[in-house]
């Protein structure tokens, strides 16, 4: 699967690494088809996990109200330059993707 994620993990002052990420995903709410009136099911990311050195940093549970192509920014302690930050997501259809990003 083509990688759906872009992220930057930047080590800053006081040992804090700030991660900014964007995931390409439609994040569609449940809605009615304008022509047929049929209910079109929601299609959205339910879980995002971030891991560093094999330890869970944050686990996000998202609902339909998270915007399309979701942006998420958070920070954590204890990383050094060159470490890998691993991010994985799963949507409500069971689709998943994951990638690793270096701490710069």
């Amino acid at each position, binding site marked *: *699967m083509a*990688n759906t994620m872009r992220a930057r993990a930047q080590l800053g002052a006081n040992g*804090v690494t700030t991660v900014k990420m964007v995931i390409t995903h439609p994040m569609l*709410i449940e*809605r009615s088809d304008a022509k047929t009136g049929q209910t079109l099911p929601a299609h959205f990311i*339910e*879980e995002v*996990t971030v*891991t*560093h050195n*094999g*330890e*869970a*940093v*944050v*686990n*996000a*549970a*998202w*609902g*339909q*109200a*998270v*915007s*399309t192509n*979701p*942006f*998420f*920014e*958070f*920070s*954590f*302690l*204890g990383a050094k330059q060159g470490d*890998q930050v*691993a991010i*994985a*997501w*799963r949507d409500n259809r069971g689709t*998943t*993707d*994951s*990638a*690793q990003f270096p701490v710069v």
Partner: protein
Amino acid sequence: MAVSGRRSILKMMLAAGATGLSLAAGLLAPMRAIAAWPKAAFDAKTPKEVIDAIFKGGPIEKSSAVSIVAPDLAENGAIVPITVTAELSGIESITVLAEENPRPLASTYTLGKRAVLPFSMRIKLAKTQNVTAIVQAQGKLYTTTKRIIVSVGGCGG
């Protein structure tokens, strides 16, 4: 439960630089053991039902230690940037509600020991409403609310 087995598999996968589904499965497995996606909370239709589903009636204290940074007026309700920060130690989770959305729970985050705030995200607001953040720190719940005016609702179409 073979926690050590799962953790060593995870380390092997990260070391090998595996990508794609196998890495995703390896990364997601330990998190799933902590907390499955809270369907009842995400399907709840009122803020009270969301709070009951997640926090099971624990007392929530209004606190100026929690802040929501967001525009007073959102031009586009489909993409409203929200930043939650808190002057609290031992933060365990953050929960964000859009009180008058059809389903008020927008997101909930479980923090590992090394995570720090602020957290920023973008959410859809169906109309002008209060956005509420609930932060759990050292077992206690703290909350604040910000009213956001929405020009064009973000849940239509």
